[in-house]
């Protein structure tokens, strides 16, 4: 021991003899350089597109002179204002419907002895991973006013010609959206309910409150912030949604903000007006997310109740079958029925002819896979754009998360803020920002794969960051310090200790980004060129063409891809890896 200890400090003595600035350089950690690079990357990905969007909204097309005329144009026609009002009403209606779907299910799964909880989970998961525009196509097949299956069955049963249901209505549109948004509220409310211990209700019971009084006075107020938070999220998702309103709303002549933005991008492209028109969307999102943060940060709600005591499921008696029936009903509407008609149509010569051997064909798939000029390319594009974006997002996110968590640089929280900022930027607004900033010369990325990958990276950075930050936080700094004091340098410590401890979570995060990127429509639709179409965009193109059999088959391909990815994710990162709340 003595001899080893005696050799060592020589190094330190040499260090001490060097000039002070040299010593500083020697001890300088590479993290400072990295910090600068990360700031640059985040500015490029987040700040510049949004800044450019703001600037462009005040510029005259061509000259770039300051003007307010874009705003005058954007808000000068009744049709445009009506679209704005439609978006708000649509958001309100679909969040209301989502609450009606989700809250009873969440309560049943979390607090009661309802059977079939695994089945209910599967429904929620299914509704969550099914791309919303696919559900929209399914519902067109189900509830199209003339040939929709439900209406055909109705006519067959009653002899009446008038359709039973019509998807091409405002309510139809809201319903289809809600059927894919309710999982968000379900997740919020269930995790809040999971924290309410039976003892809290017992405490109310012992003071004389009956079961329903306890539920009204104790349980509901405790989860109310979660419900409200869920409503806000669904509202914002709906307002920013492009696919479903485009597929159902445009034929139904229901104009909303996102479809109106799309029209501003029809030839001749009016980015300036689109930028001005996108501002309310941005402001509403920023405002409501702030409200939500304030709501959930308030004291005295479920998050503060800590590890509640014992939890006993409420006995429902005969009612449990009724509750399960309700869950099944929602599942049928959201997942089972749309999927069945899509599958049927994808294998049909003509979907309206129903299930029959004479109607069966593999031609739709064969056409897409072997003869369609874009289908295979779009699959390949989707895979590699999503993989590249997921990789970039996770790399940036884990670096930022690590630097912030270990306080390696001053003002690390500014990095974290930039990484989280896209959370409050609707995808469609992000896309317009990217278009404004990078589509035209001098950068001229329009139609390239790069601009889509960058937009996806920016859009999903918050998901990756939340995931990485949680992973890094889970590694106690002493884990690393223990390695350093035993002789491991910072890089070796990261490679040998930190990386193995966080890699699983990072893979989980990578897969989530990959999956959401692979089905992303609104950010892609504004940025794709003829050769860079993704599956989601091509699916939208096909829906405009109106060939539902081919469309359904392509949807089948997209769904198969998603399912494979989700299966891999569940295997690697756990059953509920996509539903975890960050």
């Amino acid at each position, binding site marked *: 021991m003595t001899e080893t200890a005696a050799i060592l400090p020589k190094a330190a003595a040499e260090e001490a003899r060097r000039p002070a600035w040299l010593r500083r350089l020697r001890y300088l950690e590479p993290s400072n350089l990295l910090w600068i690079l990360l700031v640059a990357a985040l500015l490029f990905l987040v700040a510049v597109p949004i800044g450019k969007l703001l600037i462009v909204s005040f510029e005259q097309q061509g000259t770039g002179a300051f003007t307010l005329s874009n705003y005058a144009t954007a808000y000068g026609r009744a049709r445009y204002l009506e679209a704005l009002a439609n978006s708000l009403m649509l958001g309100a209606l679909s969040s209301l419907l989502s609450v009606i779907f989700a809250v009873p299910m969440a309560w049943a799964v979390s607090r009661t002895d309802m059977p079939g909880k695994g089945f209910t989970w599967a429904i929620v998961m299914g509704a969550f991973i099914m791309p919303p525009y696919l559900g929209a196509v399914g519902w067109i097949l189900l509830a199209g006013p003339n040939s929709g299956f439900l209406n055909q069955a109705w006519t067959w049963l009653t002899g009446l010609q008038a359709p039973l249901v019509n998807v091409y209505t405002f309510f139809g549109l809201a319903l289809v959206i809600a059927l894919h948004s309710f999982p968000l509220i379900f997740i919020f409310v269930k995790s809040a309910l999971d924290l309410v211990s039976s003892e809290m209700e017992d405490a109310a019971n012992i003071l004389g409150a009956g079961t329903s009084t306890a539920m009204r006075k104790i349980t509901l107020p405790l989860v109310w912030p979660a419900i409200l938070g869920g409503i806000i999220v669904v509202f914002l998702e709906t307002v920013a949604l492009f696919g479903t309103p485009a597929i159902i709303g445009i034929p139904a002549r229901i104009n909303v903000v996102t479809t109106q933005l799309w029209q501003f991008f029809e030839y001749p492209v009016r980015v300036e007006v689109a930028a001005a028109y996108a501002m309310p969307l941005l402001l509403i999102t920023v405002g409501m997310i702030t409200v939500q943060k304030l709501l959930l940060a308030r004291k005295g709600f479920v998050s503060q109740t800590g590890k509640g005591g014992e939890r006993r499921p409420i006995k429902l008696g005969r009612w449990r079958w009724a509750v399960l029936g309700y869950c099944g009903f929602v599942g049928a509407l959201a997942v089972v029925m749309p999927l069945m008609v899509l599958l049927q149509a994808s294998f049909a010569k003509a979907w309206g002819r129903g299930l029959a051997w004479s109607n069966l064909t593999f031609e739709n798939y064969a056409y897409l896979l072997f003869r369609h000029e874009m289908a295979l390319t779009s699959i390949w594009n989707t895979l590699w754009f999503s993989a590249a974006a997921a990789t970039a997002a996770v790399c940036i996110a884990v670096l930022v998360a690590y630097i912030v968590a270990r306080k390696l640089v001053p003002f690390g929280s500014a990095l974290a803020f930039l990484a989280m900022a896209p959370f409050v930027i609707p995808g469609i607004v992000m896309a317009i920002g990217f278009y404004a900033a990078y589509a035209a010369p001098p950068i001229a990325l329009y139609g390239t794969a790069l601009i889509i990958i960058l937009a996806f990276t920016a859009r999903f950075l918050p998901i990756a960051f939340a995931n990485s930050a949680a992973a890094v936080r889970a590694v106690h700094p002493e884990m690393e310090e223990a390695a350093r004091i035993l002789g491991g340098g910072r890089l070796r410590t990261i490679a040998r200790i930190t990386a*193995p401890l966080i890699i699983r979570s990072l893979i989980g995060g990578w897969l989530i980004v990959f999956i959401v990127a692979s089905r992303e429509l609104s950010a892609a639709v504004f940025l794709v060129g003829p050769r860079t179409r993704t599956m989601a965009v091509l699916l939208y193109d096909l829906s405009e063409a109106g060939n539902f059999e081919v469309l359904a088959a392509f949807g089948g391909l997209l769904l198969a891809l998603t399912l494979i990815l989700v299966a891999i994710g569940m295997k690697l990162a756990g059953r509920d890896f996509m539903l975890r709340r960050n």
Partner: protein
Amino acid sequence: MPRLTLKGLSKSYGPVKVVDNVDLTLQEGEFVCLLGPSGCGKTTTLRMIAGFVEPTEGSISMDGEVFSAPGAVLPPERRRMSMIFQSYAIWPNMTVAENVAFGLKLQKLSSADVRDRVAQILKVVQMSHLADRYPAELSGGQQQRVALARAIVVKPAVLLLDEPLSNLDANLREEMRFEIRRLHDEFRITTVYVTHDQSEAMATADRIAVMNAGRIEQVDAPHLIYARPRTRFVAAFIGRTNLLAGHVANGEIGLDGFALPTAQLGEAVPDSARPILLSVRPQSMALHRSRPQAHDGRPVLSAVVAQRTYLGESWDYVVHPQQSGLQLRVTAPPLQVHEVGEAVWLEIDPQQIAVVA
């Protein structure tokens, strides 16, 4: 040459000086405890020694070489120290043996050497049978042993421990306290041990450095820290005591209601007129029902019992000497029962009185 020297060491976070001008010297093989209340800067001091925190003033040197000074900190990995953390920081992705082998592999030892040394140290900490377990499968005490083995196996020049026992239950804590001292007696590694538990410090340390508000108040052997506290804080923080303010004049210490000849005290008191602070431990006084023989001319005062608490091993009485405003705590054996309000005689042993200031 001392092994480890802290000279004028300070650390400020913004305007707050959390470590303030600390001087401390450890000889080779010495075991020193940093003892102090929560938030007094123990961990910060230890982490400066380890190289995780840069000092704002002063220096740390080992074997005469400067390791840390403002602006120049040798990184932890080049200090040849090892450390045991409050959270143990056992790497959950490695087995017990891999955890212990980590530091040795970094020293580029041959794999046969690594295997031998790991096996040897695991035997010392009685963990051989669990070498292939993962940390999640170990109890708290076993994880603690792994942390000890991992830190000791590299034969560090200095071993640092930050409240290593605070996460263990009371029985295990006592057992591990002796284990740590046993390992120190076996390997003689120079050790800095941080704790806020005085009995832990007493049981393990060669010397205790008592810290308060970033400063070291006193460094001494455990029994001297107890018997001869040098500051008001140390006297009050270690054990229980009665602090009496008095005045020295003409070979006597004047206290509230009575006086003590300076010659009776166990330590010399310079005979100049000045205020003085005495620490009188409850154990250095006795209660009697009738006036005792005042042997050696010990002071005897008549007093009244004001309060009592039974502590199991002893009685804790608060008595009130007559013609005095003092309240004194006195310890008595379990069978010596006095009622509240009873008149008693209080005998003081001046040899055990400490002059604090």
